[in-house]
């Protein structure tokens, strides 16, 4: 079984999804999907251990060797990402039961859990595969699941949010498809490692350059880089709480990983940053994105929407790390990819608990939360501190590395931008904390959220603190991953 780990992570939810769709009632689909996502997490953790021992795990689909068959190629970067995806799915699934019963309804829950499984399958597939076209297929699986999940939100605006994401997501996916086609014409291969070997010889052809532009633009649409983020705030605000938690924590992160994989492994840093002006394009967008989205989130009355804009800002930090093109910048980007998943997952789940008891996530619903729902409130406070980047939380670790990377390059304006972004985060997290602590509760009789919501939230909050204090595991893996990626795809 250990040999088949790379495919088991993806296969378990794929096989379970149709079964879940056929089950009846509210308990069975939930129980089955929870168990399956725990099994996937177990596989992903074992896989990470395997990668730590071997450095690279290659799985050939059906025994067909790489150029002919599809191979799954797991190194440090995607092993870490697989743990994040399956880990978040394993926390969100148990959390989903009550929240989904209230927001989606018991009769629709088999379809809901099947779509949730398909989403996590699509995301892990994108992370695991070493084949460029296979990425497109998994991208569309996860996107289609996302469209249906967003549309299950209570508010009717969920439908329009889902529709505009469908249009933008399809354009992004098709751009990626065009890029892959152009690369295939030039190289005759779709395998990422093969592409990396053949591309340097023909890298000055306009077809390859056009392909690069299409791929980067298409993926940037999916990862919601400013100014391609317009689909994200509505999609996050109106989808059911459990969906927002999983989407906000993992979906954009996987797109970021695909960007890293193409920029560093397939095209190689020399091409991306030397022949192509990638840094010159991405850095201004990332900086404008992180400053403007942080500013916009300050004024949002709906806290879910505020966190959605904050996600756009955090993506700015990650893209900034990638655009530096150095090993340190890449380490920071990978760390923030993992850490931001932990904090946004926790924060969106906290809001889900607030919505469960208060019926909404507006600032007025958060008034006096410290008295009525203290455990939920303190989870939000710790998650918020992590978002700001206060020491002893994960947010500090990744921002620290990002600042170090910028200092190494001597980019002082960037350092200032990162610090200003953190200050803005203090403001927008602060106003929620202020309302919760000093505000008058609308209805003081409201009780604390039930344990099945609180336990998953606090598991993630604990992870936020644990990985913020004991940084050895994540930093070591991120550094090893960055070293592998900087060496390019030639390492077979």
């Amino acid at each position, binding site marked *: 079984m250990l040999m088949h780990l790379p495919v088991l992570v993806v296969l378990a939810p794929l096989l379970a999804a149709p079964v879940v769709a056929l089950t009846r009632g509210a308990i069975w689909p939930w129980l089955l999907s929870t168990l399956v996502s725990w099994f996937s997490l177990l596989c992903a953790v074992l896989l990470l251990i395997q990668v730590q021992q071997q450095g690279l795990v290659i799985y050939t689909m059906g025994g067909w060797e790489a150029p002919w068959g599809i191979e799954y190629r797991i190194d440090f970067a995607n092993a870490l990402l697989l743990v994040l995806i399956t880990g978040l799915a394993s926390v969100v699934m148990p959390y989903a039961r009550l929240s989904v019963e209230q927001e989606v309804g018991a009769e629709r829950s088999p379809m809901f859990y099947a779509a949730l499984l398909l989403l996590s399958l699509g995301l892990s597939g994108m992370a695991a595969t070493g084949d460029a076209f296979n990425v497109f297929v998994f991208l*569309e699986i996860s996107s289609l699941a996302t*469209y249906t999940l967003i549309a299950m939100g209570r508010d009717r605006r969920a*439908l329009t949010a889902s529709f505009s994401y469908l*249009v933008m997501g399809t*354009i992004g*996916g098709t751009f990626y*498809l065009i890029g892959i086609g152009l690369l*295939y014409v030039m190289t005759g291969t779709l395998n990422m490692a093969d592409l990396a070997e053949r591309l340097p010889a023909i890298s000055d052809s306009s077809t390859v350059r056009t392909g690069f532009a299409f791929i980067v633009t298409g993926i940037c649409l999916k990862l919601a880089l400013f100014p391609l983020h317009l689909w994200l705030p509505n999609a996050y605000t109106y989808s059911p709480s459990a969906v927002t938690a999983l989407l906000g924590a993992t979906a954009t992160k996987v797109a970021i990983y695909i960007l890293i994989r193409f920029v560093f492994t397939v095209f190689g840093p020399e091409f991306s940053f030397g022949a192509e002006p990638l840094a010159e394009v991405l850095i201004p967008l990332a900086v404008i994105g992180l400053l403007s989205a942080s500013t916009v989130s300050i004024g949002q009355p709906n806290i879910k929407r505020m966190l959605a804009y904050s996600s756009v800002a955090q993506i700015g930090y990650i893209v900034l790390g990638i655009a530096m093109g150095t090993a340190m910048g890449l380490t920071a980007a990978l760390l923030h990819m993992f850490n931001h998943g932990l904090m946004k997952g926790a924060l969106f789940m906290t809001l889900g608990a607030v919505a469960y008891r208060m019926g909404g996530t507006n600032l007025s619903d958060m008034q006096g939360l410290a008295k009525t729902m203290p455990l939920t409130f303190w989870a939000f406070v710790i998650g918020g501190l992590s978002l700001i980047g206060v020491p002893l939380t994960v947010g500090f670790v990744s921002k620290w590395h990002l600042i170090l990377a910028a200092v190494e390059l001597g980019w002082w304006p960037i350092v200032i931008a990162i610090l200003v972004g953190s200050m803005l985060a203090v403001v927008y997290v602060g106003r929620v904390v202020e309302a919760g602590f000093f505000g008058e509760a609308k209805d003081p009789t409201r009780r604390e959220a039930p344990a099945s919501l609180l336990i998953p939230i606090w598991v993630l909050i604990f992870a936020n603190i644990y990985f913020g204090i004991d940084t050895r595991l994540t930093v070591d893996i991120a550094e090893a991953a960055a070293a592998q990626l900087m060496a390019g795809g030639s390492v077979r």
Partner: protein
Amino acid sequence: MSGLGIWNYVIIIFLMMTGLYMVISSSNLVKKLIGLNVFQTSVFFMYISFGYITGGSGPLYNENVVLYANPLTHVLILTAIVVGVATTAVGLALTIRIKESFGTIEEDDLHKMDSSL
């Protein structure tokens, strides 16, 4: 490459731009989906054109044939067509539900009804 060769790509780019323009400019959600389909179809054409060489035969072994067309791009695009169909289906289903709950599928009216869109 003479004759048909370059014309294929001219048509593809024309379709691609037409589709994108429809998605951006039209206010009706169904028209947007049609534009999206035109856009995707142009990419299907592009892949199919990539695989074919003038005078190339189908990928069946025959002693008299020296030039084969590449079937792989055609197989790839079959997958992409399936994805396109699925996307259109989800898009149309969403449009029906939007019509049911808002009473309109004109984007301008939807904007007026919910200012936050």
